Structure formats: C-alpha cells, structure tokens
C-alpha cells in the first residue's frame, strides 16, 4: 500500500493520498482544496511572488525556512516538510508582528501582492537574516508590487517585531519518511527516492521520465504549456545529492543543491559568483532551483554555465552505477540537445577555484538588474603571468544556441601581452565566435557589441578598480 504525502501545515500533520495528481501545484492545493485563498496567483511562472509561501525543511538539527513560489511547486514536494501560508501567521485583530509592521508602515495598497511579501519577510525573519536595506531588497527581489514603490515594505521589514515561534524540528523529524515516495494517478507516476542509487535505478528503468529538481523550469511546462507529465522523478529527497563538498581547490555541487545553499560556497570560490547568484532569479527561485538543474536543462540563457565553464568546471553524469565526467562545455551539443543518454542524469558539477592572480569576471546583462534573464552573460578567466596571457577561458550565455566558449577570442589572447591592443584584437574575434539572435531581450547587434565591451570592461577592471554602475551611490558634493 503506497504511503501518503505527509507534511506539516501550521505545525499539524497533514496527509495527501498517494493517488493525487502529482503535478497539482501547491498554489492550487491551497486555493481550491484547502480553501486558503490568501495565497494568490499573479503569474503562475514564479516571477511575481504573489503566491509566496514558506517551507520549513530539516537541515541537520535545525529547520531551514525558505520562501518559495507555490505556483510552480508540485504538491508531492511537500513531503516531509512544513508549509506556512499567510493564514498561518495571524488574522485581523490578532496579527503577527510581520503583518502588523506592514499595516503600521502602509506596506499594502491594492493588497494583492501583500500576502507574498508578508511570507517573504516572515521567512527572512525566521532565518534570522539581516534587515539592512540591501539584504531586504535582495530578499524581496522575487516579489513584485505595482502600487507602493517598495519603500513602505522595506520600512516594514526593518521595523518588524518578533513573537515566539514554536520549534517544529521534532515534529518535522517525526514525519521524515524512511522510504521514498511513489504517487500513482491514472497511469501517471511520481517518484521521490531518498538516495542517488535509488534515483539512478528508477531513471534507468524509466528512461523517458522527467527529472525534477527545484521545478523552477519544469513547473512552467505544466502551468504555462499545459503539458501532462507521465512520469516524474524528483531528486529533491536524495540526501546524498544535497552536499557541497570541498575537494581542496575545487567544490563539488550535488544535483539537489539549491542556488541558495550553494551561494556561500560559490561566493567563496570567487566573489563574482556571489554577485551573480544574488541577481539570479528571485530568492524564491534560488530557494528551489538547483545549480545542476540550470545546467541540465541545456538552456542557452542559463547563467551558471558560462560562469562555471570559465572556471574549467566538469560535469558528472551517472547512469545506473556508471559515472562519466566531461568538461561542462562539452555537455551542450545544440539547441535543446545535450550529451545525456536516456536514463542518465547530472549527478554533480565540479568547479575549480580560480587561481589567485587570474583575471576572473562574471557579467550579467539584463534590462533589470534583479531577477531578470540575461541578454548576455559572460564568464571570463584569464591567466596572466609576467604581463602575458597564459591561457583564457571565456564563455558566453545568450550569444548562441547553447552556452558556448569564445574559441577565437580565447586564441587571440593566448600567449599575447595583456594589453588594450591584445584585448581589441580578441574582441574583434568574437564576431567569428558568435552570430547571436535578435529577440525580446536584445538585438543581435547589441549582444555582439555588449559581449565585446564586457571583455573590454574585464580588462579595464583588471588594470584598476573601475567602478561598477550597480555600486554607484549618489554623487558626493559640498
């Protein structure tokens, strides 16, 4: 007999039968099955944050609280976790301090985005995160508000008081399943194994299955493309895929490691990674999406591949018990096609730490700084010794049908003096590397020119501390 999905709602154990629609979203579960209509649908694609709820997950002894988008979270992904919605906090007349601060500081106007903001702030508070303006802006980048201009909400974030919260670690521990989850719904199946070995076996037996990590891409197949997924295999509960390992000189990031959980390790690899991840998606996306998922789906505009390729990263693929490693750039064969056999999955990515003294830069160009998909993304790593380039690894996203190295540009740098003249020759070679497209994010001409200028900017920054526009503050005077 299949076991049900077990999760905590407001600290109480709830069960969902093992025959529910496996791609029922948590948003629809809340709104239409549990009559909790405080959580709103604004976009159904994880970009507006109106559906933000908070998940509590056991991380060792402690509980990790994450703001996530309910609209692209499948209900089986609640298994073994705690769910909080805006109704969990307080009601009119007995508001939670986070809610009260939003009232006191005029943080709501039309009110539709408000529950999402409340939940993002609640998660921020439960995590004990800092409440300086920048930290709050980063925490709220995944929540869109069209009314307030954000000032009152940021003020509420700084002013919010606290209330004692019950410790749910024990209750969460009590619902941790001993074995994986299997959902069967009218011939459709959902598997959530507990280990990489189980995962590998299920995928080998079901080579057509959809591999589900955070769901920040796969979720949209369901909500936006109305696709019916026959077999879904979730790697979210594979404990042995959740590790970021220090290999000494490199880190190994497992397939289930979310952006948020890799953030510190990647920032330690190089601060440029920290800034990239700060701007990648909103926090709700970083709390679900995985580094390896961003690679595995093969998107030409994923931000991790160019940056990781620049480090010389390798990808670990696994099928059954067999593993193989390949340079990350070799994984991307063509648009929509990757070097991944049926039944095979991305198990980890290994990223070497850029050697001290290398020029290492990541640049992300988008219409909006926060939570926007790149028009062009650059990862650049140039070794310079005695004023001469030893080797260069330069990769771009948004410039081709796949993330791709700029071979001609790299060749034009290698062995030459690291000077403006060399860089000019190298950026001229980019036209041979790339024939970008024009789309809604940018024109082909802009992409090519911006790509050249990003390499030029990397050179300028290597010469002296060139200021970045994002760091600009109001001009000093008087």
């Amino acid at each position, binding site marked *: 007999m299949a076991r049900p999905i077990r999760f905590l709602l407001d600290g109480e154990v709830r069960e969902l039968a093992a025959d529910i629609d496996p791609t029922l979203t948590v948003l629809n579960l809340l709104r239409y099955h549990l009559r909790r209509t405080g959580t709103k649908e604004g976009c159904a694609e994880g970009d507006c944050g109106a559906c933000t709820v908070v998940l509590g997950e056991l991380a060792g002894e402690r509980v990790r609280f994450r703001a996530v988008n309910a609209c692209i979270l499948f209900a089986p992904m609640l298994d073994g976790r705690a769910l909080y919605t805006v109704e969990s906090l307080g009601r009119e007349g007995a508001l939670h301090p986070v809610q009260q601060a939003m009232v006191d500081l005029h943080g709501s106007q039309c009110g539709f985005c408000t529950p999402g903001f409340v939940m993002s702030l609640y998660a921020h508070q439960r995590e004990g995160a800092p409440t300086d303006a920048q930290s709050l802006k980063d925490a709220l980048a995944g929540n869109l508000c069209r009314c307030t201009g954000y000032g009152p909400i940021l003020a509420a974030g700084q002013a919010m008081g606290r209330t004692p919260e019950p410790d749910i670690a024990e209750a969460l521990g009590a619902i941790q399943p001993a074995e994986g989850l299997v959902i069967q719904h009218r011939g459709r199946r959902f598997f959530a194994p507990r280990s990489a070995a189980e995962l590998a076996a299920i995928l080998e037996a079901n080579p057509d299955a959809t591999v589900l990590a955070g769901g920040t891409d796969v979720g949209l197949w369901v909500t936006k493309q109305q696709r019916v997924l026959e077999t879904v295999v979730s790697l979210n509960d594979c404990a042995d895929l959740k590790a970021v390992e220090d290999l000494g000189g490199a880190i190994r990031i497992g397939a289930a490691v979310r952006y948020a959980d890799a953030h510190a390790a990647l920032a330690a690899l190089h601060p440029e990674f920290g800034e990239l991840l700060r701007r990648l998606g909103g926090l709700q996306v970083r709390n679900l999406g995985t580094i390896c998922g961003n690679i595995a789906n093969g998107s030409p505009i994923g931000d991790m591949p160019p940056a990781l390729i620049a480090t010389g990263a390798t990808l670990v693929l696994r099928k059954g018990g067999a593993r193989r490693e390949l340079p990350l750039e070799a994984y991307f064969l063509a648009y929509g096609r990757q070097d991944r056999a049926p039944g095979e999955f991305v198990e980890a990515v290994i990223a070497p730490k850029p050697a001290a003294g290398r020029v290492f830069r990541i640049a992300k160009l988008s219409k909006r700084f926060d939570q926007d998909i790149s028009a062009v993304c650059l990862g650049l790593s140039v070794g310079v010794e005695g004023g001469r380039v030893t080797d260069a690894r330069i990769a771009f996203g948004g410039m081709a049908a796949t993330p791709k190295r700029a071979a001609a540009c790299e060749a034009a740098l290698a062995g030459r003096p690291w000077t403006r003249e060399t860089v000019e020759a190298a950026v001229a070679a980019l036209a041979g590397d790339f024939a970008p497209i024009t789309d*809604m994010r940018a024109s082909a001409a802009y992409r090519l020119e911006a790509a050249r200028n990003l390499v030029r900017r990397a050179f300028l920054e290597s010469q002296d501390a060139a200021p970045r526009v994002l760091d600009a503050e109001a001009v000093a005077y*008087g």
Partner: protein
Amino acid sequence: MADSGAARVLPVLHAPIGHDSAPRHVSGEALYIDDIPEPPGLLHLCAGLSERAHARVTRLDLSAVRAAPGVVAVLTPADVSGRNDISPFAGDDPLFAEGEVMFLGQPLFCVAAETLPKARAAAALAAVEYEDLPLLLTAEAALAAGSFIEPSQTMILGDARAAIAAAPHTVSGHLQVGGQEHFYLEGQVALAIPGEGADLHVWTSTQHPTETQHILARVLGCADAAVTVEVRRMGGGFGGKETQSVQWAAMAALAARMTRRPAKIRLDRDDDMAATGKRHDFEINWTLGLDADGRLRGARFEFASRCGFSADLSHAINDRAMFHADNAYALQAAEIVSHRTRTHTVSNTAFRGFGGPQGMMAIERALDAAALALGRDPLDVRLANLYGVAGDTTPYGQTVEDAVIREIMEALAAGCDYRARRTAVQAWNADNDHLKRGLALTPVKFGISFTTTYLNQAGALVHVYTDGSIHLNHGGTEMGQGLNIKVAQVVADAFQVPLAAVRITSTRTDKVPNTSATAASSGSDLNGMAALDACEQIKARLADWAQANYGHAPRFTADGVQVGAEFFSFRDFVNQAYLARVSLSAAGFYKTPDIHYDRTTHKGRPFYYFAYGAACSEVAIDTLTGENKVTRVDILHDVGRSLNPAIDLGQIEGGFIQGMGWLTTEELVFDATGRLRTHAPSTYKIPTAGDRPDAFNIAIWSGGENREPTIHRSKAVGEPPLMLAISVFSALTDAVASVGGHKAMPNLDAPATPERILAAVNDVRRRAGE
C-alpha cells in the same frame, strides 16, 4: 462601538490613517473575486484567442472544443443575444471577432467547462484557418497608410509657425515613447451569477461598474436594471480595468445567461497581457523657437500614437496628450497636432496619466535639447518658461490661476542642493570615462477633471442606523489607492464620529447608479464631495428636527452632538431623530462646477484645477553596456491640503516608481507578425525593490491648498506623480550627453533600456567627434 458618549473623537481629516483594508490585506482575509467561495455548479471559462494579427477567418471549427471532456458550452458570436460589441462608445470592439481578426490575441470564442484546466485544454482544440491580410503594426506604418481611428486633431495658440520662424534659435527633434503594460497583480477576473428571469449579478474587477452594467445589458439584450455589477476591491487597476475588464465580464454574463449556471473567468497572465490594451506608444516630432536666454517664442508638436485596432478611449487619451504638451510652461504660441493611428495590435487604453505623460515627455525632451543647444543648465531654461513666470495662457485657452510650480521647483532645487550637485556631477564626469552621471529636475502640472465634461459627476449613498453606525457607499471603486478610507474620513468628520463607525461597502450599480469610471485621479474629488453632500442632507434634516424639538440647531463635535447646552452621544441623538420619524438616509450628488470644453476648437476650461509637483533625479550609466542606475531622487509634490498624507505619500512613491519603470526597464516588444513577445513577468520587467533608489526623499509641499473649493481643499494625487519620473529620463539623457561634452543631443528613446542607452552613447560619441 458607535456610542462615543465618553471618549473624545480624534480628528480624522488630514490625518495619516492607514488603508482600511490593510489588516485584511496582510492576513490574506481581503477577498478578491477569485477568493469568493465558489458557488455550486460554477462553470470556468477560457477564451480562444486569435493567432493572427490581421486575417480573414476562413474556418472556425469548434467541434473538438465542444466534444472535449467537461465542456458545457462554447460561446460564439451567434450566442450573443444582444449586440456583439463591448466598446465604450465607438461600436468597434466586438465581444468575439466575426469573420476578420484585428489583432493577435483577439477573442474568437469562449469555452465554459466544469473546471479551469478543462476549459483551457478545450480552448486549445479549436481548428482555425486564416487568410492573412495586410498588417499595420506601428504608428509609423499606419500614419503612412492613412489608417486612423478618427481625424487628426489640432490645437492652436497664436501663430506658432511665424513665432518660431522669427525666433533667434530653433531646435527640433524626434522622440519615440514606448507603451506600458499595467501589470496589475490581480489579472482580469469576473464572476456572474444568474438570478430570477433576466436578473444577473456580476462581480468583476473593474474601475467602471456602471459602464460594465450598461455594456452587459447591451450584449445580453436586456434592460440595464436587470444587471447588477459589484466590486469590493481590485488587485490593482491603473487604468487597465477601466474598459478592458468589460470583455471578460461580458463572457461570464453570457455564459451564465446561456447555461443558467454561475460562470467565472480568470485570465492567465499571458492571455491577459496579449488580449488587453496598454499605454499608447507615441512618435513625436517637436520644434521650439527660443530667444538667446532660452525663453520660448513658440512650439510645435506632432504626435502619432498607436491606438490599436479600435477606438476604445483613444480620443480622450490623445486629447490629454495635447493638453499636456505644455506641461508647466507658457509656450507663447503653439501648434499641437495629434494623429490617432489604427493598427492591428491590441486596443490601447487608459493608463495612469491617460496620455498626459507622453505629452509631457515631448516638451521635457525639447527643453533638454534647447538647453543643450544654448549651453544653459536645463533647470534655468525650465524656470524661465514656467506659468506664472512667462505667461498664464494654455494652448487650449485656459488661464493658469495658481501657478505655484515655480515656488515648488525652487524649494526643491534648494532643498536637494541641485546647484552644488550639478557642479559635482560635472566634475565627476570630467574625471571618469567609463561611468557617467546625469542630473535633472523636472516639473509636473497635471490638469484635473475628465476632459469629457459630463463625466465629472458622482453619487453616494449614506445610511445612518439607529445604533449610530453609518453605511457608506459611493460610485468610486477601490483599487488600492485608498479612495474608500478618504471618503470614510470625510463622512466620519461630517458627523464627528470615530472612523470605526463608518462601514465601507462594496461598489454596486444598484446602490449608486450612472457613475463614471474611477479614473482621471478624480475618485476622492468627486466621491468625497458626493458623500459629503449626502451627509449634509442628513445633517440638515437632523438640524430641522432639533430646531423644532429643542429650539437649537445641533453642532456635531468631537465630544458628541451639542444641542443648546446639552450634549448627546451621536447614537442617542440619531435614535431620537429616528423615533421622531426623521429620514437618516440620503443619496448625495456632486458635479464639478465651472468646467467646459469645445472639442471642435479645442478651447475652453477643461480642468477645474491643476496638481503640481517636481522631482530631481540623479543617475549613473555604464557607457560600455548601457546599464544604468537611479542613485538619488528628491520629490516635492502638491496635494493641496492632504486628506490623508499616508495615502498620498504612497501614491507619490508608487506613481514615481511606476513611471520610472515605464521609462527604463519596461519594454513591450511585438514581433513582425504582431505577436507580443513580452507577455509575462519573465520577459516584461517592472521595477523590483532593488530598483528603488537608495536615496529617495519624498515630501508633500507644505504650501499646498487648493484654490478651488474641492473636498476639504485637497488635490487629486492618483496620476500626477507618475510623471515625476520624467526626471529620470532627463537625467539619463544628461548622462549620455556628457559622453560628448554636451555638444550633441542624445537620440535616446524611451524606454531607456541598456541597449538604447548604449546606442545613444555611441551616437553621441560619433556626432560630438565630428
């Protein structure tokens, strides 16, 4: 609770009181239409949308749609019992396209099914064949083809051509200004429940319940009186639910009528963005004549806007662009020409500012160019041409009587150290090649009133119950702007009762009929006055009774109702009046006085008054990528005597950020087939918290007081602050110009995306080098 015999009532007028719904917003208890418990038998709707921008529909086979699981009905033009038209007035906006589709995303039919997923799945099964027809996608193309929604309009003041020809300096240019998606967080939604006979009750997220009622009756072929439209609140409107909400309400109404079952429609975000209108994009040609000191001699503007496939509200929107081509400046002589092009794109519509922002962009760009040509600080050119400094006659013949804008701009310039920062920015730019900074201080003067004069009327309904509680209803709708709390403050103040005694209720066409849209920033002005009228009627009856009964007129005070030497609680007093058979209910009414306008000559006094404000923005740009950041903003805004400073500050900040998005990150991209490629928040980028400037100082102008007897001397605030963001665009232009030492005027169009900024930087470099 209403018995205030003991406690003194705190003043509520002009006080920073929070939004009445805030505790329910933050707890999720505020009900939006999709949150209303679903009635048994509810049908869910999904519209089938055109896949072509302009085509003859040669085949529309819906048999697979009808046969799909869960489908109960499929609505087509043949099912429209009344007229297949949902237009506000022009008769050119079908509920369902018939024979010919006019834009990509136009509804062809609508499925009613047992669940929403089933309705959506079924809608995708339609077999539609098209025969493509020629496309006009842009204003430029339509202008060349002579495709218009109405004849071009011209507004004339003096002889602008002669004045410009005689001027010592002439400057001219071209500017493109992009459109804007409303991106209300709550998408379009409506729920219709059939009653007895022809009766129908419709909940819809709309700014215009009355027009919805009238159009639904027209589509159904029934009397207005059979249809009741109700809206408690919207999850944002911004103009996008003034007319654009009607189509979906009409589908729900028609489905409910056909099936005798409740029917709900809620658009997916992508459908919402494809199928509903947006802010008009504009092509603008301008020419100024000036003297050597930068004083205007005359100005000419030629506007061409993309109206889309139907008229919608484009007549009035483009009129308002013309009304604001002067912004705050005495043009001396003006010729303002406006072309309203008909294109095969979604019908553009009202959006906060209603054409005014595009008009203002024209003159602000022109003055930036004039300042650059004359080598003067743009602020000095602006100050020299203000109403109150350089004249007082607008191009439409209205006299500007309260030209307080100079006072506001000078106070702002002093308060934000504009001069010192101008020097600092220049010095910084001289020392830096890669990043450049820009600074600009621009004014806003925005005309308040519907320019269609008859719309300037409103009604309210006030009941006083015998426990002293008050039921307040008015014709305005709440979309987050705080209208309800402001009107409640007016009512509480009128009776001197606590705010909690006033019960705010949903807007309904069966309580207050024949209302205008909540639009044109007029909500508080109109409905506040109508509610006050209702209160005064009740108070007059109470006074008559008290005079007859006690020999004294009553005074409504913070300590209760004073009658001669006696004090009664409000509850006690109204209960006595009830027992004496005094009516405690009144319908209030208001119409704005003194306004008139002749559209054939474009002359008159269309505006009751003007709202003013000024903003100073400072930016930085990356000259290698075009990336840009707003580093500091200072705002000083005139709201008259604010009814509620907390609400007004919220409108000012929110309006500014929304305007900043319009001019920077928000880009609507249509491809060559007419398909909107930026149809979701993944591709259409409104500002996030991170875009809010770190240094952001907002103040309400302390000198504000409406010269006209508006509601407690306040001023409208909904739209004007949006245009404060033009200062950001001017500052970006200034930063780009610095690349060429302010020798070449940047050809920067809006929105100023990184791509456009980089192109403008390159262009300036090239021209300045020549």
